[in-house]
């Protein structure tokens, strides 16, 4: 359940939504406009197959294969398709590279556009009015809320996904991971890092001993 609603009104709204959904599905099936197994398959795909692991593969490959990274930054759509990731909300992909002096963060202020083929469906916070309204105006404050304090010397670029182009951040490879393989790097790359609201951290064992 989303955290902000616990009232009985909200529970009633959920029951109503479930009933209205059943009614709509029943009518669309009866009228031959949709089949049950198409709905089942879409739910299965986005619950099980299409998620941030796809994006993590793209990032880990870019970190370990300079030629791939170059292709990825020049033509994101084609380079992502090389790994087999194509689909709805990913017809035009642009990959934004973080550097020691520039950090990128992605939003959709008008809607909740998001690169589904590589990140799956967006988390609720990405679709929230708070994130959509605030990150274009006060990205530093928003990133601080996510636990990331960026020095003023680092430029922040906020990408508002207002056309059908979809954006993904190529985060910086964390220090101390130079000897890790693509397969070892992949699990370090989080969804939030590819949206641009989190840093990729090196595994604890590789971080400076304090």
């Amino acid at each position, binding site marked *: *359940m*989303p*955290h*902000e609603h616990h009232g009985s009104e909200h529970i009633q709204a959920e029951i109503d*939504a*479930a*009933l*209205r*959904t*059943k*009614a*709509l*599905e*029943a*009518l669309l*099936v009866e*009228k*031959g*406009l*949709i*089949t049950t197994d*198409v709905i089942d*398959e879409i*739910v299965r*795909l*986005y*619950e099980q197959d299409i998620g941030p692991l796809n994006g993590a593969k793209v990032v880990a490959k870019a970190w370990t294969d300079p030629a791939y990274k170059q292709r990825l930054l020049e033509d994101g759509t084609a380079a992502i398709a090389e790994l087999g990731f*194509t*689909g709805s*909300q990913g*017809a*035009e992909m642009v990959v934004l590279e973080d550097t020691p002096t520039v950090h990128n963060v992605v939003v959709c*202020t*008008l*809607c909740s556009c998001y690169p589904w083929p590589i990140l*799956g*469906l967006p988390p609720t*916070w990405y679709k*929230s*009015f*708070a994130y*959509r*309204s*605030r990150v*274009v*105006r006060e*990205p530093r404050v*928003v990133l601080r809320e996510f636990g990331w304090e960026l020095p*003023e*010397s*680092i*430029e*922040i*670029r*906020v990408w*508002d*996904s207002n*056309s*059908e*182009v979809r954006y993904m951040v190529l985060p910086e490879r964390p220090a101390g991971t130079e000897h890790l393989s693509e397969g070892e790097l992949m699990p370090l790359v989080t969804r939030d890092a590819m949206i641009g609201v989190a840093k990729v951290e090196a595994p604890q064992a590789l971080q400076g001993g304090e």
Partner: protein
Amino acid sequence: MNSIHDMGGMHGFGPIKREENEPVFHHAWEGRVFGMAGTPVPGGFRYAIERMDPVHYLASSYYEKWLFVKTQGLIEAGILTQEQLDDRITYFRNNPNATPPQRHDPELVQRFLADLRSPESLRREISIEPAFDIGDSVKARNMHPVGHIRLPRYARGRRGLVASFYGIQDINDTLPPGVDAQPQPLYSVRFEARELWGPSAEPNCAVYLDMWESYLEPA
């Protein structure tokens, strides 16, 4: 249209609430609504959401909006009637264990998956000479059409620099009746935070927006 959906820069929505290990769908009905997205909403899905009453928009969750506009769109198009819908709702309310009728078509699923894997891009391989070059100074037009538009209010009238060129792409805006949406050059334009937000802007920040050529004028 200047509706509540155009939220960039607004105050008052509070902190960003996050949920650890969030499921893809919080309720089974959300997945079903998402799965029915293939049946198009006549007149455009996003424009339908933008035309929701603002109070309703703010009070509805993401998939409640999807469910509402899909249902209303199909009713308005004459594909469903309100009576049919109410009738089924009453039936499922009185029979909580009943499920919608089933229809299966494995071939259709395969066709559907093939379509999903090769989405249609808005990019068009036609030659139109772009009016602007990378590095050009431009201004977002101050325009307020009642139809669907992808130019957020916070950028209208603001100056920026063309950062890159995304080729020739179809435009999604709702145009007046009889006017065909011609594909246009699409640019990425960089707006300095200070240009958008004035003295309250955070230091060393910029916003990038995708701009069809008709959104821009020379500056």
